[in-house]
């Protein structure tokens, strides 16, 4: 017995302390490099491809339950939906008539002003939420489609309420989006009422969007609707972002802060739409995948 124990002891090889120091150093390097650069993305992507089948298998019961629920409540849901759609159709008919008139008027005005026609529509991908990552300080969603479906970092995510967030990380089969309320996300917005251009930031503490750094005499008041302004190119103009709830004016600093409630519902549904905005490729800070196009663009500019 004791001989076998000794043999086992010798077979272990590397002492625990060496292993500890080695693994701790590797972990620390990973943490710091990952926090400050994107060099770890290939590793992350590789591991996520390994992980993807496991994630799908684990989520199977949930998907099954959701399917059964959908199926069992299909009749009631259909009735509800059809009523809602009826109402919407009537409402939309008015809007469409109005929009048609506006669009012809707009085209005419653009011609008058000599403004170049922009491309208002983008190809889209419908995605489903795979899971919500459990990190305490970020608001993220992971979707079930990735680079293989043409999704790239920087693309906006929308639902029927408006802007939900932005794709920040893509693996071959999944994509991760930062929600509007994520602190890292900044969206160029515009007050619909008067066209005032602002920047909206996430404030994860209360699920709201904050508009900061504008002068305290700016014309913005509770009830104002914020839409994306299209400045910067990552988000197409005119997507609904939020409704202003309160404005805090600080006369001593000369700056004001407005808090808005997002109009989208990232927590309610499972399906979202990703807009394949071409410009987002340029915006995304992922040097190794689009270095060629980036260089080409820079070349054109320079």
């Amino acid at each position: 017995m004791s001989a076998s124990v000794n043999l086992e002891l010798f077979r272990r090889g590397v002492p625990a302390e060496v292993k500890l120091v080695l693994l701790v150093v590797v972990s620390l390097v990973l943490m710091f490099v990952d926090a400050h650069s994107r060099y770890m993305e290939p590793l992350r992507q590789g591991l996520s491809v390994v992980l993807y089948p496991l994630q799908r298998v684990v989520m199977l019961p949930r998907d099954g339950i959701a399917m059964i629920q959908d199926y069992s409540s299909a009749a009631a849901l259909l009735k509800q939906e059809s009523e809602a759609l009826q109402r919407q159709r009537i409402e939309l008919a008015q809007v469409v008539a109005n929009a048609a008139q506006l669009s012809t008027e707009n085209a005419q005005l653009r011609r008058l002003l000599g403004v170049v026609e922009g491309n208002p529509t983008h190809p889209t991908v419908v995605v489903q939420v795979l899971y919500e990552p459990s990190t305490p300080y970020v608001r993220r969603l992971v979707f079930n489609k990735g680079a293989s479906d043409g999704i790239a970092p920087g693309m906006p995510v929308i639902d029927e309420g408006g802007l939900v967030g932005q794709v920040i990380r893509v693996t071959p089969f999944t994509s991760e989006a930062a929600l509007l309320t994520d602190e890292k996300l900044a969206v160029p917005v515009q007050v619909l009422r008067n066209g005032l251009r602002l920047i909206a930031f996430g404030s994860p503490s209360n699920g709201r969007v904050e508009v900061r750094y504008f002068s305290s005499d700016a014309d913005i008041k509770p009830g104002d609707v914020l839409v994306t302004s299209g400045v910067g190119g990552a988000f197409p103009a005119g997507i609904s972002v939020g409704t202003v709830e309160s404005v805090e004016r600080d006369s001593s600093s000369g700056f004001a802060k407005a808090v808005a409630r997002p109009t989208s519902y990232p927590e309610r549904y499972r399906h979202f739409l990703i807009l394949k905005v071409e410009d987002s490729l340029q915006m995304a800070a992922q040097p190794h995948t689009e270095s060629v196009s980036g260089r080409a663009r820079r070349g054109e500019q320079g």
Partner: protein
Amino acid sequence: MIHQHQPTPRTTSRMLNSRGVGGDSLDMPVDIRFVWGSIILVFLLSLLPWRLMDMAPDLLMLVLAFWAVHENRRVGMVSGFILGLLLDVHDGGPLGQHALTYVLVCYGADMLHRRLLRFDLLSQALHMLVVFMVARLVTVLLSAWVTGVWPGWGWAAGVLIASVLWVPVGWLLLLPKHRLDDVDSEVG
């Protein structure tokens, strides 16, 4: 509190025979398939959204630490590191955060395992509470420094719950071994 046994002849003989709770793992190894099966099962469970809760205990950490104590030569820091890295990728958080926690926990378990195997599960849980707490504190502080956001104190409650769970989870994980021991004693 901790229930201190007087070493009666019966318990002494039990300890020598390595029967009962906290038997020495050297002479009666648990089936390797059971060890890894339980770890993989808990890893898969960890991919589910229940960890979103503020005070969710880290069950993977618990099971890894348990096997690092009871099956010291099979489960260790490298296994912890790899599983932690996979969990980090799943969470989309700072890469290496869970890996570091699990490496530290497995190291603590490795250091303490000879001592811990002499105790019952409750005393083991008290020892491991300290190991869990230190390991989590280190990584929480580090990731708070790296990301610039303090995640609150929910993790400490999670560590407490994980330590409390050491007793029932440990009992469950040692069930097959007890059964083997029983068969052994019946035969002998």
